């Protein structure tokens, strides 16, 4: 984090965290199939670290369970995220981290859409376009420095 001295948002509001998901008896039953639901997808992304604070995206309310849509049979996952401030320069990076996490952890049959919540960021369209462009995402991940930053966001803190 090179920009330690000049954070975009110095004192962000922090929010509560969900508890661990309770394991239901049906989930331990070999014969029942568990569908992929919003909570499961949310669990994948909620612990992603914010690039500039020692907090998770969930604690900053960047991602919320209500903003995750999952259509398991239709193979679509939609995640809408909210940058903490409208001119957040990290929005693209956060979006990229969410996308990479989902690419790595979801079955390949899913189409993943990542968008900024409408009206919460100044360059909303540009960022959305960037995140939806497969080639630009792939190119970004070829960049070792960027990949390292993304991996840092994805590494679980203890």
């Amino acid at each position, binding site marked *: 984090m090179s920009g*330690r001295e000049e954070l975009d948002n*110095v*004192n*962000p*509001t*922090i*929010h*509560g965290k969900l508890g661990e998901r309770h*394991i239901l008896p049906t*989930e*331990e039953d*070999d014969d029942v*199939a*568990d569908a*992929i639901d919003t909570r*499961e997808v949310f669990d*994948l992304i909620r612990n992603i670290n914010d690039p500039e*604070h*020692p*907090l998770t995206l969930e604690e900053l309310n960047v991602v919320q369970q209500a903003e995750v849509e999952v259509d398991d049979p239709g193979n679509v996952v939609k995640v809408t995220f909210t940058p903490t401030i409208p001119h957040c320069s990290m929005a693209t990076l956060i979006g990229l981290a969410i996308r990479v996490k989902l690419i*790595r*952890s*979801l*079955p*390949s*049959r899913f189409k993943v859409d990542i968008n900024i919540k409408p009206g919460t960021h100044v360059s909303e369209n540009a960022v959305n376009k960037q995140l939806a462009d497969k080639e630009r995402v792939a190119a970004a991940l070829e960049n*070792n420095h960027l*990949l*390292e930053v993304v*991996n840092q966001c*994805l*590494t679980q803190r203890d």
Partner: protein
Amino acid sequence: MSWSVHSAKPYRLCIIHIFCLDKMAATMWTEIIENYVRGEQKEGVTSITAEITNGQQTVENFVDSMGTYLMSTETRIRAKGVELMSEVLTSLPRAFLNQQQIQVLIEFLCARLLDHHSITQHTLKGLLAMSSQSSFPPSSSVQVMTAIFKEVQVQTMLQVDRRTVYNIVVNLLRISLTELQGMGSEFVLGLLHAMDGEKDPRNLILLFNILPTVINNFKIDMFIEETFEVVACYYPVDFHPPPNDPYGISREKLALSLKTCLSSTPKFAQFCLPMVMEKLSSDLQTARLDSYQLLQACAPVYSQGDMMSYIEAIWSYCRKELMVGASVELDQEAVKTLGAVVKAVSTGIQSTSSGGGGDGDLNSFLRNILTECRQHLCEPDHRMIHPCSKLLVAVATASYPACIVVLKYSVPILLDQFHIFDQTRERMVLLDIIQRLLHSGHDHIKEADDWRAIHAHHLDTVVTTVLSTLAKDQGVPDLRKAGLGTLGELVQVPVLMDQSRLELVGQELTRILLEEANVDVRCECIKTVSCFASRHTEFVKSTILTTLWTTVQKGESGYQRIVVDMATIVTNTSDDLSRSLTSELMVEIAKTELNSEQHLVYLATLNTLTAHLSSTPSNLESLLSSVVHPLMKMVVSATLQSSVEAGNNPHCCGEVLVAMAEVFRTVVPKLDTSMGSKLCQCAVDVFLHGNLTSLELTNPNTSVPFSPLDPRAPVHQTQLVTVLQPIVCSLRRDIHMPSSKQLMSSLLHIAAHSRAWLASTWAAKGLAGVVNKHPAGSALDEVLVEAEVLVEAESLLGQAMSSGQEGPVKQQALMAWVLLTKALVMRSHPKATTFLTTLLRLLEDAELGAQVPQTLGMLLEDMGDVLSEGLHADVKIMYKQRVFLQALPFVMALFNKDDLQTRAITALCHLLPSIPRPVLLAELPPIIPRLVQSLRVTDPRPTLPILDILESLLEETLPSLVDQADTLLPTLLELSAYQASMKVRIASLKCVGAITSFPHHLVYPHQETVVRSLAPRLDDKKRLVRQEAGKARTKWILLQQDTKG
């Protein structure tokens, strides 16, 4: 006398003069010495030393025979001569030389320091040897040090030789500190000069260890800055030990000893503090970490004034650290540092009201930080309130004056905010901070007036405010939890709790304990009540506890929970409360009209209470008379009834007996020898001899005698062995067991023959417990022979017996045999091997063989109810290893029999988890191929334990497992798709993930395959499998990144 550098003659004269040469002896070693000096033979040293030490020759003779070489005009030969001499001196025993000899030798060696520089290193070794001699004359130390400082250019020498110099200093400081002090500044300057520029970490550790002694015992005022510079140039320590460093020197060790040096005198403050401030602004985390730790060490040593002048700077660094929150460790260190510094500057300040001197500085500092924090404290929804509160709590915890200022200022602000913000989340944050602040106050604030000032205009409302968060219809459980936490602190503040508020709080807490459904909230409530009770014991006892107990007695739903909570509260509070609850419980347990389920609940609670009470030895006597004896009397008198009546009596119910036994097991191991012997005598009298007088009972039913250990006794009597077992098995080992042979024999018969499962199991355990502790001798041997005859010949191996009907009996016999074997192998009894072999042979038995693998696990597991160290069992070290090593060949042999492979795997599954790690690692290589092979069987479900073991082993990257990586990976990947069991899938995915810790070059080639084959697992139908697959896959994906980065 003055010595010229190259003239050898004077030395000889000196030596001849003092040692009174013996020409004969001088020639003795000529050959050995000649060889050594020519560099041909090194063994000479040992033979010379041997002859000197055993008195055949003297040191004087030796030195004399060296004469020619020490005098030689050739530098090389002189060097060799001194080297030989130093080596011989070094290898002499520490107390060999007398003062005079040492003095002469020192004289000589010091003079040698003037000689050619190649001789210096050998001379120093000789001096080191001298300084290690126990009769070293302290007066010579000045001479040695002066010579070294004057003649030796320490920093131009090799590491080993520099070390020799430092070791000499260490030795001399130890022997003759006073004499060296006489050297004054000469010594200090000499040492500083000698160590200036030292780079080797091994030497530095040594130096850092002696410097505090020098700094504190010598006048260094004139060279404070020089001394400081010599030490401080190493700060912060930048050292990375080479891999496989044999010296075991770590950065941490160096940093620690450097810290001790820098914090050894307050005189360093003026130089050290500016340096630390500079390092605190460093980007390097280790530099900041070291600086915080250094400050913590310096704060109590340095003067108050010095610390005071830097406190603002320290505050701002700590604040920045927490606000950025780069690492948890740094946060903690920063908080600790702030606390230590505030504590240091507050010493001697009693109150903050007077405005004079240093108090004023502290006050204005505190005012500044509070003004800075004010804004953040008013924003409980923002992040900065958290670091802020941590800092304030650290300051408040540090000292009384700081505590009172911080609390007076911040508690009212926080309470105001509580009224402004009505959102649950913010209120929780506020409550949590208030709780932590109040908690810090309890150590410091004793005056009621202070408390009044802190709660200021909230004095009347604070309790009700906090109580409002507990209301049933209000908020989420977490808010109630936070409210209870704060209430726990409030109830300890004397001025807040008048009679009406006591009642209010009491009612509210009782209501929560009775009605609250959330476990965490109840748990917090119990803590609060415990705090409450520690201050207002009588009140809590007469209100909360009484109400709860009435509810329990009614036996309404939920009473189980309440009685457990009560036990926790009373054990947290005081022994008196615990004792009164114990006696209440005993009254309830004595009631036969209650059902057995109630008995079980009460007995479990009783066990918690006795466990707490018995930890204080003075309570044991009363526990024996109020709990153990009454319980024993209860069960015995219940069995004296006819079997019909006994059947309905809960005191004859097996489960109740087991629960009572649990209570006994808690008390009995803690009894001392005399109490133990009495109890044991009583138990044997009652149960073995049927003598009821000690329990003050008589048998009303003369037709059925009371003799529970008689094999012919009715079942309800025999099962009393359940309560006998904990008494005879849990006593100290030195307590003599009366009629032990008869007891063991009776237990053996019940174990082998009784048809009641309960009785036979506990008899077998009882027997094992007694056998394990019984002194070796004929009595024990006879019982063992009896056991072999009874169990082995008749039941286990007697193939002649018809199988069908005798099945259960055989299993009982097997169980008894296993427990006996365990008792014997644990104490390493000579018979142990025989017993174990018999058991192992049964692995191939057609009828019992399938059960033997499980029993092998029993041999190694720690059992709670018998044969454990807590119950004073005789456990020899390494018994598990011995069992494992004896069992392994038998188990491995099974792998060669086609139909018994599953049994072999089951046996391994039971053996491996209990084996200590080092043994496991040593024995594993031959087993690993079998384990890997066992994973490829058609039904992998039984191998689940193996997968668990494998996972832990994989993380340790054993070479033998690493070799198997190529076979292991495909097998595991295949198992991760095993449809019939999700547990197998999860366990194998964990193993796949763990393999990433293998050496990179081995796993990296597999990366693509693994990542690809794990992709379908992300779509597993079970969520838990998907989670594990995601984790494992991420590990494999990140593998690639490591090498690139």
